[in-house]
């Protein structure tokens, strides 16, 4: 792999390349960015066809973008393609929206937060904030005064969402481009709607009953977590990670802990590693049960929802005993765990594994075999493997399309290398596959828990770090597999007690992008079910 990468990198013109723990940083000039991206994407040796994220940066004197890339065949390789511009008035880079399907949303996000324009991308609407928001919040010189941006009294004007903004002076007299075609019948779906799984606003154009185009509108729960992280100390940002994707809160928190531990080179005791892994897997089961129940409820089966919640409560009971919290376990700390496990923990977990196996069979009988459910799910919402990679749909959705993207296997962290399990793959890419793979993953999670719970080593549960944690200067990336896919934390430190920049890679954002690509051509009644099968969590998208 190393030789192959050398060959690819030699094709890049005027690039500075450095390597640290399988993370390759390539710095190119602004003019060469597009060419470098094309080379990485389209070469014949190693194709970097998975754009994980675009990270906007404000280096105080200049603005920059970082493209986080991986080849789909070997996800352990990460390439950070960096570029900067000194122009703070009109910063602009060339677009890559035609190279990766995931790029348009990411570019809009960077534009929203940093005011960086992507030349060639016509859709430069704000993605999270209102179109009439003043200033770019993640810039270091942003003024957060409520006088500049008071609480709005009126709903956002839908015309400002409908028409793309004018970017150049020469276009100012021309007719503004519209998202939908003229005469399209557009239905607003959300933001307050029980089936959107949060506050998502979809604008859907219809041809009779058939969906023509979906235009998602985010930001109804944008809390500015990344900006809050910049004024918080390291142990203070842990609880914010919980509140991103609250259904896999413990896993997200684990990721942030690991990134910080990597930075300060703190050895986590094995006892903590084991317990963290078990808690992560319990969280995953709880999330999948809710996802299963909510999807069934979206299709009209309320019984399934109640059954799913009933089994989930068993996990909540275990959490209450050991962590004190229910949904927000707040259990991982920098260096280990908040406190030791409850004496009953192992007994309860083992009882739960037996119980869950029994119930899983019941769930299959209740819903999987149901001819009505199968009729609705089979052959609907096809996502191909190439699409999944290009959009960056990781997690159960990517694996249901046949893409092996399980971080637990590719880059084992915590105690995952101590357990035997298979990362379930399905080839179909249909709604039914996305439904079925979650139940299979519950089974695999039970296997992991079963193997680890009896072997929790004795010893300390936490390695105490210094009271004030200071990360050495540099960039830290940590990926974990949360219930929705590849959740990455990017921390840029300048050696201070506050991080300089924190970026969370949301697996849910790409899932809405998936919806945008698979919904057209389906019936409007199936839109809700497709959303249920993707199981996105909106606060994770909006951050």
């Amino acid at each position: 792999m190393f030789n192959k990468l050398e060959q690819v990198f030699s094709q890049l013109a005027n690039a500075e390349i450095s390597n640290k723990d399988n993370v390759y940083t390539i710095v190119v000039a602004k003019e060469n960015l597009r060419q470098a991206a094309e080379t990485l994407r389209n070469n014949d040796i190693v194709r970097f066809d998975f754009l994980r994220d675009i990270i906007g940066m404000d280096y105080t004197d200049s603005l920059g973008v970082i493209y986080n890339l991986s080849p789909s065949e070997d996800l352990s390789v990460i390439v950070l393609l960096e570029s900067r511009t000194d122009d703070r008035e009109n910063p602009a880079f060339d677009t890559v929206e035609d190279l990766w399907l995931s790029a348009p949303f990411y570019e809009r996000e960077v534009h929203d937060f940093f005011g960086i324009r992507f030349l060639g991308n016509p859709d430069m609407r704000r993605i999270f904030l209102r179109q009439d928001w003043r200033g770019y919040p993640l810039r270091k010189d942003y003024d957060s005064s409520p006088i500049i941006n008071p609480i709005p009294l009126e709903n956002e004007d839908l015309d400002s969402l409908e028409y793309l903004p004018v970017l150049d002076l020469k276009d100012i007299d021309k007719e503004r481009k519209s998202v939908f075609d003229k005469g399209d019948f557009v239905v607003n779906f959300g933001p307050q709607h029980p089936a959107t799984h949060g506050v998502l606003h979809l604008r859907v154009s219809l041809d009779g009953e058939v969906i023509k185009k979906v235009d998602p509108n985010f930001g109804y729960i944008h809390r500015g977590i990344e900006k809050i992280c910049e004024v918080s100390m390291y142990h203070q940002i842990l609880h914010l990670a919980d509140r991103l994707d609250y259904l896999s809160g413990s896993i997200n928190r684990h990721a942030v802990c690991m990134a910080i531990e990597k930075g300060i080179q703190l050895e986590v005791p094995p006892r903590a590693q084991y317990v963290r892994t078990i808690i992560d897997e319990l969280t995953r089961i709880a999330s999948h049960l809710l996802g299963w129940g909510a999807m069934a409820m979206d299709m009209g089966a309320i019984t399934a929802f109640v059954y799913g919640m009933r089994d989930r409560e068993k996990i909540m009971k275990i959490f209450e005993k050991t962590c004190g919290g229910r949904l927000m376990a707040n259990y991982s700390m920098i260096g280990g765990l908040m406190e030791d496990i409850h004496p009953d923990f192992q007994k309860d977990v083992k009882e739960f594994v037996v119980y869950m196996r029994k119930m899983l069979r019941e769930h299959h009988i209740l819903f999987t075999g149901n001819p009505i459910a199968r009729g609705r799910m089979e052959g609907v919402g096809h996502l191909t493997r190439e699409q999944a990679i290009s959009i960056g749909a990781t997690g159960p959705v990517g694996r249901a399309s046949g893409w092996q993207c399980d971080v637990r296997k590719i880059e084992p962290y915590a105690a995952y290398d101590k357990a035997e399990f298979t990362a379930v793959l399905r080839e179909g890419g249909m709604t039914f596959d996305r439904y079925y793979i979650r139940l299979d993953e519950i089974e695999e999670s039970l296997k992991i828990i079963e193997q680890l719970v009896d072997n929790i080593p004795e010893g300390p549960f936490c390695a105490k770090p210094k009271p004030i944690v200071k990360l050495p200067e540099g960039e830290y990336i940590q990926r974990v597999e949360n219930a929705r896919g590849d959740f990455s934390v990017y921390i840029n430190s300048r050696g201070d007690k506050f991080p300089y920049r924190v970026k969370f890679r949301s697996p849910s954002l790409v899932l809405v992008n998936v919806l945008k690509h698979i919904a057209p051509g389906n019936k409007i009644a199936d839109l809700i079910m497709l959303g249920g099968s993707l199981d996105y969590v909106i606060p994770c998208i909006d951050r």
Partner: protein
Amino acid sequence: MTTADFKDNEYLEQYVEQLREGGVNVAIAKLDDIINWGRSNSVWPLTFATSCCGIEFMSLGAARFDFSRFGWEVTRNSPRQADVVFCFGTIVHKMAPVLKRLYDQMSEPKYVIAVGGCAISGGPFKKSYHTVMGIDQIIPVDVYVPGCPPSPNAIIYGMLQLSRKIKVQEFFSLPKQPKVVEHLDNPIEVVKYV
């Protein structure tokens, strides 16, 4: 004539006494008590959940906690049919007008329960540039349930507080006009980003 004028009910008691002596079984009560008994035990909430607390709301509806014991289980998706809006989760600038509109669409008498730290005061997002620091800046709140997120037990306790509040109201003298809230009467602390 207002409801408060009907305080002297002595003649009613005498009348009942006479009837009882004649062998007729009669019970008297205030209409308010009966109506409020009914109202406080069948409050229909609006399904309005923006983030984490919404999951605890789901738990509340499911088997272990089961809020249908208190007659709250008829969740409505339209604000026009709802009595109470449980505000589960953070309200941000973009969502604020939506919440206000939902509240305005509800018919009187209507109640608001702010669940969780975010809805009460901004909670963990106090330093944010985009969070509304407490929904009482937009709509009037009847009951606050603290926690991040509060456990379903706490939410049940909050619900019962609202029940108590409804029981002591005089139904016939409830305001006909919707309550008006002064917008942003308390100044917000400005956070300086370094």
